[in-house]
């Protein structure tokens, strides 16, 4: 058989063969399919609000209800708001990134299984599915931010330049949920046990993060570093600092970021490794 050489040099040529071991991330393909990513995010958002009578109002109602409950249970019953702490604002600022994280993680971990029909019928970089499920939480997050912003105005909390840090911090929340979500979504394809673990994981994780309380309650250098192993601890602390001032998140934050990067990169490679058997095992 004559091998024509342009078969190999042409950029449009693809070769399909069994991959062994760890494969490259193939980010070029991901870029080629960026419009699909946009449409998947758009679909998730559209569908979420389409059949709900209250529609977008849910995105306001849920954080408000949470803030009220937290303020009552922790602020009034457990007296967390001693010493001049504005507990409603403290919990609102904690709940803001937490809501984004918990929602994204929940959707992300079930995203592959929920899109079985796509995975078994069409090719596209599978990474698009978990990434889209994480990004689609941004609309809710935007609305929740307005709630927090209104609270700030109500409590006459001063605006400051440090609020600009919210942007990279939000990216970090997305990255954290994607990092964990990549692992869980790929594992869920093979072991459906994951779907039972996720709600439990999210609840536990919330109490291990400074959502309902201030991170300053955790004292001692060693304990704080261990605490920082939970990436959400640093992020939420960062949100509080950017909005309410106080101590900037120091070493806690560095540990968090390292932790996220380790989870994210390992998650990406694990996902890519499992990706090629998704259509056969799902």
């Amino acid at each position, binding site marked *: 058989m004559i091998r*024509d050489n342009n*078969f190999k040099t*042409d950029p*449009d*040529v*693809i*070769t*399909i*063969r*069994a*991959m062994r071991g760890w494969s490259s991330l193939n980010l070029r393909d991901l870029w080629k399919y960026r*419009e*699909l990513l*946009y*449409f998947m995010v*758009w*679909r998730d958002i*559209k*569908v979420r609000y*389409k*059949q709900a009578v209250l529609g977008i109002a849910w995105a306001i109602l849920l954080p408000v209800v949470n803030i009220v409950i937290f303020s009552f249970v922790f602020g009034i019953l457990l007296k967390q708001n001693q010493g001049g702490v504005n507990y409603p604002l403290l919990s609102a600022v904690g709940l803001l990134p937490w809501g984004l994280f918990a929602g994204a993680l929940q959707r992300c971990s079930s995203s592959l299984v929920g899109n079985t*029909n*796509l*995975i*078994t*019928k*069409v*090719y*596209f970089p599978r990474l698009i599915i978990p990434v889209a499920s994480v990004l689609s939480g941004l609309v809710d997050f935007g609305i929740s931010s307005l709630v927090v912003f209104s609270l700030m105005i109500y409590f006459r909390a001063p605006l400051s330049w440090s609020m600009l840090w919210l942007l990279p911090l939000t990216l970090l929340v997305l990255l954290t949920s994607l990092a964990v979500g990549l692992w869980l979504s790929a594992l869920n*394809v*093979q*072991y*459906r*046990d*994951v779907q039972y673990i996720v709600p439990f994981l999210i609840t536990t994780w919330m109490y291990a993060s400074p959502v309902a309380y201030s991170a300053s309650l955790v004292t001692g250098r060693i304990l704080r570093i261990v605490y920082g192993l939970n990436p959400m601890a640093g992020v939420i602390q960062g949100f509080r600092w950017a909005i309410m001032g106080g101590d900037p998140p120091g070493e806690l934050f560095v540990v968090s970021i390292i932790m996220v990067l380790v989870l994210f990169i390992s998650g990406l490679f694990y996902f890519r490794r499992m990706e*090629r*058997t998704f*259509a*056969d*095992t*799902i």
Partner: protein
Amino acid sequence: MSNVIRVDQVSKRFRIGLVHQRYQTLSEKISNTLSAPLRTFRRIQTPKTDSEDTIWALRDISFDVPQGQILGIIGRNGAGKSTLLKILSRITEPTEGSITIRGRVGSLLEVGTGFHPELTGRENIYLNGAILGMKRTEIERKFDEIIAFSEIEKFIDTPVKRYSSGMYLRLAFAVAAHLEPEILVVDEVLAVGDAEFQKKCLGKMGDVAQQGRTVLFVSHNMSAILRLTHESIVLANGRMVMRAPSGEAVDFYLSAGNPKAGERVWEAAEIPADAAPFCPIAVRLLDKKGKVVDTIRSTEQFTIEVEYSLSSPLTGLRIGIYLSTTRGEYVFTSFDTDDAGKFEEIGSRSAGRYVSRCRVPADLLNNGYFILSINASSYRIRRYFQDEQALTFTVNTDGAPGSQWAEPRLGLVRPRFDWTIDKVE
């Protein structure tokens, strides 16, 4: 002409475990892992045979496709057609071998992939288009054309969950038909929809061919294969058994399926697990003396018998036979309980072994090659089993009306009519 697809010794192995049991649970995985050393030890003692728990869905498939060719892929259910298309579409990877493809591949293994019931027709066009690999600007450019093709302009802003299944398919196919990749991979998607729309879709597929694009086309509809493709490959049990001009390939496929002419016996491995409680045993073609034959005389009556067993009682069961030509035209459909009285009387069949016999009168069929499909179902409840090419046979019209003239006769039937000739003036 240069080749745009090169398939080189592709094989695909499935673990049977993956077929029956779709996923493991974590606890099974843990207990498997714990018992692994023990199993490894046992395996050393008894040499391992890999045929036990794996099946080869494809074995050593190699072929090239030149640019602009429409290549048909034919084979029985389970021959590996779908697996081959899935590998070509990059949905799953081959176990061995490689495929090189030059150009953008669009695959249509199903119409309406990714349609969301809550979204409107308009929204689904964008979503589905993007999923099939179209650019947003491309979808916008073809939008009006897609709507026109689908013939559902009025409902374009209605959620597709309110569509009838026909409308849904029209819209889905309209999007798919406007996909313009350099290489198009199409599975049995034309089998759906009403006849007129099917014709329109086949026309559209023909246009694609005119534009010099390469198409790989799987179908059970032999007339579509013959009409659209020049060349076809035949798959059987995961191997490629033939590549030839489509006419030849279709004939080979239709005759090769039945080594034992006049009778088809199903083996346990061929019966899908979800057929239970129905279990097909055999279908036979008998001449008027009761002998199993593969050629019948049109001037004599013949019998089609379907033998099957039921592992538990079944209500409303009907055994259907469908006769069609190699071009895919149906000649007739008949069920063993077509007679309303008999349907009432039989109602439920208890567990056991049965034979349903259909006596076909003489002077019915014209000469040619016919395909018999069989089907077992309960109306509107479930289809238990189906074989779209259970048997093939030839009809010989020696002695039929008009055989004194040695010219071919048009038509599928060769009835003996009662003519009178009167002189009126």
